[in-house]
């Protein structure tokens, strides 16, 4: 459910890696309280956009504001980010990562993280190095969804996991989502995930080609998001 507060404002965002244009004049406004799908094939610019939002890419043209603030420590304190690969150091146990999140994020809910870990059959004493890829991703998701962040950014949360795990992850996202939160999910696996979107943004070769409410799309075109995606990005 959308409310009127503008959470994310992107104006004229462009980013190039040498001669390769990753983002070209992206304009995007996302309100609070939505689940937004950022959809596009590999190399379309989804991850570049996400990195800009999280402060991992600094040298770009255009203006990006989250909750009225430019990207920096203030925005990082209200953005919870799940990258497409695990990011913990090998020396860490799960409890070290929990402790880090507790210390540095004021909105982190420790007991919720433990609940989610229990659901994923993970324990605090587990060494992160000894976890499988799927376990690491679930652990990261547990940490990210345990923050009461205004904006949750998930980069390919179901990529690289089996179909059963995908359902668990999607259910975790939905069951831990609060109505005042915005979730931005970047993915190219549309069919599995479109049921949870309020709106979608199609991004193609660095350009936003569609930014619309999901219900409006279905009513206007009579197609599912997955069908529309395949049409738009047909090779």
């Amino acid at each position: 459910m959308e409310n009127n507060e503008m959470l994310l404002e992107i104006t004229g965002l462009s980013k190039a890696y040498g001669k390769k244009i990753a983002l070209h004049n992206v304009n995007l406004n996302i309100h609070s309280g939505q689940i937004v799908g950022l959809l596009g094939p590999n190399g379309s610019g989804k991850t570049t956009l996400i990195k800009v939002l999280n402060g991992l890419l600094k040298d770009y043209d255009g203006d990006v504001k989250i909750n009225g603030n430019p990207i920096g420590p203030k925005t990082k304190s209200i953005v919870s980010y799940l990258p497409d690969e695990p990011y913990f150091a090998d020396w860490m146990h799960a409890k070290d990562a929990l402790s880090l999140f507790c210390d540095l994020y004021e909105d982190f809910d420790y007991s919720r993280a433990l609940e989610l870990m229990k659901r994923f059959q993970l324990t605090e004493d587990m060494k992160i190095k000894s976890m499988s890829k799927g376990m690491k991703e679930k652990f990261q998701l547990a940490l990210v969804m345990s923050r009461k962040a205004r904006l949750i950014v998930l980069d390919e949360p179901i990529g690289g996991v089996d179909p059963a795990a995908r359902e668990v992850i999607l259910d975790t996202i939905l069951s831990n989502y609060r109505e005042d939160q915005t979730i931005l999910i970047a993915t190219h696996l549309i069919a599995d995930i479109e049921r949870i979107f309020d709106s979608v943004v199609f991004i193609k070769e660095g350009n936003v080609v569609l930014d619309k409410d999901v219900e409006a799309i279905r009513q206007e075109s009579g197609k599912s998001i997955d069908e529309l995606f395949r049409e738009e990005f047909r090779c």
Partner: protein
Amino acid sequence: MLNHLLKLMKYELKCTYRSFGLVYVVILAASFFLTPNSDGSQAAMILAMIYGIAIGTLVVMIFVTVIRNYYTSMFQKQGYLTQTLPVKSYELISSKLLIAYFWIVVSVLIIIISTFIIAFKANNASFNDILEVIRQLLQATMDRDFWLILGYFIITPLEAILLFYLTMTAVHTKYVRKHRVLIGIALYFVISYAVSYVTDVILSLSSGAFDTAFYQSVSVVQFRSEAQTWMMLGFSAVLAVVYFIGTCYILDHKLEIE
């Protein structure tokens, strides 16, 4: 700010202590068991070799740990966590710098303590002898040269570490797309060469400033070298600040994590 800094330092310590703990134990244990006046038995020689290798390992480890820890935690996969923490870039850099310096200080102390242990055993020193050495060390702090040397021990490693940080950070911008490690190493040597050239220029210019009758009437060699030494120390401090600000600027405005 201090709260964030202390928390970041806590994680830096947790990340790095494993690298050093075992080597410290080996060095101290070897120094206790080494008998300098031994009859050259094989066991004594092996122990001496272990001690020497441990010291060498420690020196190498300091460099490797400082550089590798910064590089992996800031620019590899862990960078996705580090660089998205809600902290300012100067807090991040300060935490890494202070813990790196902490390990340098602890390592030097461990080497000094182990050397003293061996020396005292060699001379069959008593407890009173140990107290006398401590007394002489404390008396040395009254000497002006002591503070100059201490200044060098504080500022020079900080400057060196910060130059590593600056060059490693500078290659994670849009200006360097390939061969980051090689370019980073080259950049390090270029900056080091430039700094040593400027240092030589400053030294030669400052030598002229002391060619007056007044300075010639005092112990010229001592006074001139001391004043220049303080000047060089000040120059090192300025460089350290420049490297720190440069690193933070790149992190805030030019960073690219791939």
